[in-house]
């Protein structure tokens, strides 16, 4: 699926139109920041990665890509992919810098809970959300990322394939298996809660 509006926005950035960069950042910052935060588990790292991703996108659109390439660009998965590359590099650098004294460096500590949106939520919804968050934390890195891209950020399979760099049918299979694990966990956790 080609993101039509994305191509138009990419072209506006390419042409250095007034306010185009601002529109670009405002359109995608929440998605990219949320994604980076869940990959990195650290808000200031996630913010730096997101900013860097936008600047790299800006550099590419204004100097390396010609107008035609901008027009036909599937902007959203491209931005996700840039963010992912930077986040993975950073995580790798951070890991090699860290001592192996922290084997649970990959630990999931629910960053979202410190980032409550202002919306008032019912107690039941909060519990459901916490449950999902907890179940996500028990998934493998790969499965968690796919669930995030598919269900939190609501990307179509074709776009997820671009982001993670595999074929669409492979993504479909992986998402399915991740979903099956997640469902099993939710069922198990609820059974545990009910006791």
């Amino acid at each position: 699926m080609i993101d039509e509006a994305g191509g138009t926005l990419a072209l506006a950035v390419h042409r250095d139109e007034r306010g185009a960069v601002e529109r670009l950042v405002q359109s995608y910052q929440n998605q990219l920041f949320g994604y980076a935060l869940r990959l990195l588990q650290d808000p200031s790292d996630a913010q730096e990665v997101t900013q860097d991703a936008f600047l790299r996108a800006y550099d590419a659109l204004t100097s390396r890509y010609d107008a035609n390439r901008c027009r036909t660009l599937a902007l959203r998965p491209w931005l996700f992919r840039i963010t992912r590359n930077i986040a993975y590099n950073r995580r790798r650098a951070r890991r090699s810098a860290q001592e192996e004294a922290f084997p649970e460096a990959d630990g999931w500590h629910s960053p979202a809970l410190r980032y409550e949106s202002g919306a008032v939520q019912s107690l039941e919804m909060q519990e459901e959300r916490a449950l999902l968050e907890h179940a996500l934390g028990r998934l493998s890195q790969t499965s968690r990322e796919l669930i995030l891209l598919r269900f939190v950020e609501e990307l179509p399979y074709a776009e997820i394939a671009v982001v993670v760099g595999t074929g669409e049918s492979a993504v479909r299979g992986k998402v399915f298996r991740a979903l099956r694990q997640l469902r099993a966990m939710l069922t198990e956790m609820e059974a545990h809660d009910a006791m």
Partner: protein
Amino acid sequence: MRCETMIEQLDEFRAGELGRPEHDAVAAHIADCPDCVAALAQIERVAALAPQLRIDAPADLVANVLAHVGDQYGSVETVVGPAWVAFNRRGITMVYLGADDATTFTSAYARRLGRQARQNEVPARYVQAVQQAAQGKVPARVPIDISGLPPFEQAVLLSLPRIPRGEVRPYAWLAREAGRPKAVRATGNALARNPVPLLLPCHRVVPTSGGVGNYAFGSTMKRGLLEREGVPTDELDTLARQGVRYIGCTSTHIYCLPTCHDARRVQPANRVPLANDGAAAAAGYRPCKHCKPALIAG
């Protein structure tokens, strides 16, 4: 239909992303498959819940990105007075000499490049490079962005660094280097509009007939810049008055432009002043391979 083939499509079925035939096939299957109905219900629950895990970006993210894009400028103190230096993420876009106030500079910037620039601190390595260039030293290597200019102007400007420090070349020489030997006048115009003087050394280009010639910021400044780089400007004036364009060497039978470092090594006794390419050819001299003096258009 078997569950295995259907179950992977349940999520797209839920999201309405399947094509008509696939959608109908899944719908027919789940009509009598309780397992898939249950699976679909759980997928729907995850899908309903997951958007609550969305996170808003910090409020200052937009401003932080914007602070790094677009053109910026600041002023740099140099030996030739204040220089306004504009830059973007790709490199230096303009060096502007001879203006005391920012307004003169910003309007010149908008006129020349059609863009606005925002005042900000100039990166230290850019400051250093501009100061070194004004002092006649070899400047630190810094990126320069002239990507918005017409291709021929870019070709002319990017040929400038081939003129060594301490030497000068005629306009016709630069026109040839830029790939259009007959476009001498257009070359002159491109140089007069050079947005990045000092760093793209247009002051090292002189009239084909000799002498120092004109400069966008005055011939006095040009003369000063060349002298700090080690060019003997008085000698250039003298040679121009005498109608001498080249220096030949009687021992090697090679002729050079007067400021070529090879010409300066010729012993005084072996030096032969030459008026043009014809005179050099008649004397049996070949052009120097360093300064490449033979002017095709000449």
